[in-house]
């Protein structure tokens, strides 16, 4: 080994003697020095931003209404009277502004925010009698206990904000008590970020850092490395030195490989410096000490080695550094084109059409695809045909459902009334069977509705932040639409929903999940680390039991109820079962490490659960009282490509795979009963039989950023960051090892060809 080690050591020596290395190290130092002053600091959330207000005019109305009441001592009176006369006049004219005049509406909102901010420094804002009817939070109470006069300016501003916000919470978007400011050399360089420090750190760690490293090292770094190292192999074939090298008692192939390793060594020095530097800076400045970041060093070295193997082969054959660089860039482009083609076809034509949910109706299965569009299986044409189509709205605005409500003999779904930012008001969409599922507008849903369930008698239940509401009214009742800004907010004239309990309202905050036992109508609700069992008695719900669950409060979750067994699947990949109604924990497993559950459902007979994971795998779990678990991969076709599953009324299980294929399996035996399998479209045929095979055999060095994301996160599926943190929202599936495998095989082939050429060539 000595001769080959000597060649590698010589590469070190060559690198150290090279000006290029020092220039690269200097550039890296400059980059690190540029990043070093970046930081963030947390400060109390005091100032009211225009975007904090969900409905500025509503707030002004409420303040005016309270101020006009004859009784004394309301927060509204105090706040309104504290505003200066000019502001009161300006805001009082708000009613004259047309909804459609967006600029004027926006200006008024900003004016309101400014006027309210003017109150933050006032030591006389608080009046004990005015706020006596308001339940102030612990933070405000603690500040008040210190005495308003004793508070620092910062504490006073915080207290006044809480005094303004608490009585009118519905007009304010919830904000964390502290906000984050991005700083450079200690100076603010960004508007306040209303997120917890932990959340900001996580975003930096999981999104910003991989992106920065991917661009800095994966793109710029590798490009520079290829340019810098391209001459190494051609130089080896310089006739003046090659004969001497080849006369030595060494293997030509090993000598070439040692030279190749030497080139990698050169880059290794740079990558170690850059990544370690980043790691230290991110650790010191942002408090993120993620040792996984250091694992990026071998990944980037590998990424470079893959490209360098192409450069080396070109260098061996043509012995010209320029040709080496050109060939490497051509290879890079080819990889990018293949990867991009697959990605584009996948995103535009495959993923959006992938069926993910199935709803059983008396005469047909309704399927919902990834974009939210609904389809009905048409036996005559053996194809999924559009059904329950929306007139004018995009399917994406449908946020809950659809569910089939037998009592109404209709599909019911919820539509977001305005943008998500404008509160949680939703209205029903109705598609009656008699109308061939044609969609029609329905009444408004109760405030805070976060799930729709089909009740035991076929009625629709809306699970809200306070409890359960039941649809009792006439769906045909007319609705009034109120214009708020430029959105139409439906308002019911009648009251089609009645509160079904519990008497003491729940306090559910997102992320939350609910599930119903079809037989008994009992409902389970999970929210922020608490699991609640709502027992249905005489059409009323009462809390039977609430238990804490060992989980981060902001984790999304899925629930399913099968008889007396409750399944809770968490964002961290855990699947837990509880015995209802006592909610005793029966088991906890992690069936698909690195992936999260996407859908969970229970068989109507209560015998089993099915859980679909974001990595496309389906697990089954026995639910009977004696079942012990753990979840097992279901013996169905398409494992790894499964997008959804649903139990039919006869307890058979329908499984979606290969974009639009649905297969029905018999309960217990897993025998294939039938299949709704439409013919593949030409694009799907091209995808499955041309693009995917080509992509599989083609090296994918450009996709090693998936590996980096996986290494940094430890998770195989990534929230697409569309603002929907629900577990059911599509997540990007990282295939961390596929690019490693394909690139490694490719690199071996390149090196083997180079060795063969070197071995057989006369020099």
């Amino acid at each position, binding site marked *: 080994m000595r001769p080959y080690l*000597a060649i590698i050591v010589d590469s070190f020596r060559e690198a150290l003697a090279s000006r290029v290395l020092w220039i690269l190290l200097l550039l890296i130092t400059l980059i690190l020095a540029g990043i070093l002053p970046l930081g963030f600091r947390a400060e109390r959330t005091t100032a009211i931003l225009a975007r904090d207000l969900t409905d500025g005019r509503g707030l002004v109305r409420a303040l005016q209404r309270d101020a006009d009441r004859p009784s004394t001592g309301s927060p509204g009176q105090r706040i309104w009277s504290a505003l200066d006369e000019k502001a009161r006049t300006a805001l009082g004219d708000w009613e004259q502004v047309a909804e459609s005049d967006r600029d004027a509406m926006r200006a008024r909102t900003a004016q309101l925010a400014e006027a309210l901010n003017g109150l933050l420094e006032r030591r006389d804002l608080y009046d004990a009698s005015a706020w006596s009817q308001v339940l102030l939070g612990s933070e405000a109470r603690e500040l008040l206990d210190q005495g308003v006069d004793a508070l620092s300016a910062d504490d006073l501003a915080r207290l006044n904000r809480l005094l303004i916000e608490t009585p009118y919470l519905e007009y304010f978007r919830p904000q964390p008590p502290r906000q984050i400011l991005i700083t450079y050399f200690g100076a603010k360089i960004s508007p306040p970020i209303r997120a917890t420090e932990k959340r900001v750190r996580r975003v930096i760690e999981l999104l910003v850092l991989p992106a920065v490293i991917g661009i800095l090292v994966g793109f710029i770094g590798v490009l520079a490395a290829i340019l810098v190292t391209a001459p190494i192999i051609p130089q080896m074939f310089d006739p*003046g030195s090659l004969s001497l090298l080849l*006369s030595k008692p060494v293997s030509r192939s090993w000598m070439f490989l040692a030279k190749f390793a030497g080139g990698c060594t050169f880059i290794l020095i740079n990558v170690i410096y850059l990544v370690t530097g980043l790691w230290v800076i991110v650790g010191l400045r942002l408090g993120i000490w993620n040792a996984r970041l250091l694992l990026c060093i071998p990944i980037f070295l590998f990424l470079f080695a893959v490209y360098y193997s192409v450069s080396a082969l070109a260098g061996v054959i043509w012995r010209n550094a320029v040709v080496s660089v050109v060939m490497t860039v051509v290879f890079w482009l080819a990889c990018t084109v293949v990867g991009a083609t697959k990605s584009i076809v996948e995103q535009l034509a495959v993923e959006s059409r992938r069926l993910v949910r199935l709803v059983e109706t008396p005469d047909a299965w309704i399927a919902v695809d990834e974009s939210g569009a609904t389809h009905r299986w048409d036996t005559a044409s053996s194809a999924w045909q559009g059904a329950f189509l929306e007139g004018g709205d995009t399917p994406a605005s449908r946020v809950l459902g659809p569910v089939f409500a037998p009592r109404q003999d209709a599909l019911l779904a919820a539509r977001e009334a305005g943008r998500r930012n404008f509160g949680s008001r939703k209205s029903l969409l109705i598609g009656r069977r008699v109308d061939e599922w044609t969609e029609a507008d329905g009444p408004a849903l109760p405030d805070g509705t976060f799930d729709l369930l089909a009740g035991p008698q076929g009625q629709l239940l809306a699970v809200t932040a306070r409890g359960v509401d039941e649809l009792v009214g006439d769906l045909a009742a007319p609705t009034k639409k109120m214009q708020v800004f430029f959105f139409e907010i439906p308002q019911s004239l009648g009251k089609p929903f009645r509160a079904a309990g519990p008497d003491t309202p729940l306090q559910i905050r997102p992320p939350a999940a609910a599930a119903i036992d079809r037989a008994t109508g009992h409902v389970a609700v999970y929210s922020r680390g608490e699991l609640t069992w709502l027992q249905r008695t005489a059409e009323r719900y009462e809390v039977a039991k609430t238990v804490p669950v060992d989980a981060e409060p902001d984790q999304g979750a899925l629930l399913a109820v099968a008889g007396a067994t409750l399944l809770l699947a968490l964002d961290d990949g855990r699947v837990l079962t509880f015995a209802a109604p006592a909610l005793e924990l029966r088991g906890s497993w992690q069936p698909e490490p690195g992936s999260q559950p996407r859908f969970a459902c229970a068989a109507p007979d209560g015998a089993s659960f099915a859980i679909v994971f974001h990595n496309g795998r389906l697990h089954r779990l026995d639910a009977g009282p004696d079942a012990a678990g753990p979840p097992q991969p279901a013996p169905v076709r398409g494992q790894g490509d499964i997008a959804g599953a649903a139990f039919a009324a006869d307890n058979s299980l329908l499984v979606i795979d290969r974009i639009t294929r649905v297969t029905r399996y018999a309960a217990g035996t897993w025998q294939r009963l039938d299949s709704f399998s439409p013919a593949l479209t030409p694009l799907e045929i091209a995808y499955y039989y041309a693009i995917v095979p080509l992509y599989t055999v083609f090296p994918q060095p450009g996709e090693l950023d998936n590996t980096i994301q996986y290494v940094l996160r430890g998770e195989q599926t990534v929230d697409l960051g569309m603002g929907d943190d629900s577990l059911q929202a599509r997540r990007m599936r990282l295939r961390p090892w596929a690019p490693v495998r394909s690139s490694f095989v490719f690199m071996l082939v390149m090196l083997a060809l180079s060795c063969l050429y070197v071995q057989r060539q006369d020099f």
Partner: protein
Amino acid sequence: MGDHAAIEVEELGKTYRDGLLRRRAFAALRGVTFQVQRGEIFGLLGPNGAGKTTLVKLLLGIVRTTQGSARMLGRPAGDRAARRRVGYLPENLRIPRHHTALTALDLFGQMSGLTRGEIRERSGPLLASVDLADRAHDSVRKYSKGMLQRLGLAIALLHQPELIFLDEPTDGLDPPGRAHVRQTLVQLKQEGKTIFLNSHLLQEVELVCDRVAILDHGVLKGLGTVEQLVPYRGEGFELQVQVAGPEPAVRAALAGRPAPRIEPLSSEQAMVHLPVRDQADVDQCIDVLRQQGLSIVALGRRRISLEEAFLHVLGLPAPGTDHA
């Protein structure tokens, strides 16, 4: 080490192929056969493009044979074990620019299988012997061509090889440098090393080589001592006789003489160039011509240069001749 010769070459041939389909062929060596005995300094002479470097590369395994066989130190040419016992100074050597003399010795020494301790131990005296001791730590970028050549010689000798190939070792050296190399070769010979010297510098070969092979266009034109290959070199001269008589008659008259060159001047006259050793030899030549009835028109004599002798062996015309 066995009894076999240091180098054994038999019917050795090498044809290079070129072009897109490798259809263009060029024969660099054709049926070359010779042996180099252990302990001798063997010179391979020939003009540029004769195939000298190809022959060395074949022996070292840098290129592959297409015909015949070659063995080195009892093992097939190119064998890694044999290469361990061989030193090589290639023509136009270039040492990578990041090296100093010491680091270059370190790299190539380790590639020859030496430990770093052995390299450290030998580097000092070796660099002193090639007059580079005081420049050992300097970058080779600052070296002259002669210094690089001397460093190359040090690299070739570092692992104390039994057989040393030197391809144009005095190229770029000044006269003292050349003398130094010659001394080194003689010293190596005294140490029992076998030296294979590739050169087109006849004087150099003549001064140090025990035996010489002459290669031209890939064909072995002669093998033996310098004296055997270049008759009368050193003591002889060339007799130039302008003869009146038909060329066939002249040719018939000189049939017994070694290496005559006959230049027809007209149908009735020819110029005869004859290497002769001494005056008795001159008399004998004249007698032979006269006995055949040929008339002597003019007579002259000129000393033979080594170059002319070499060209003579290659069958090439000598540059302008003197007429008495």
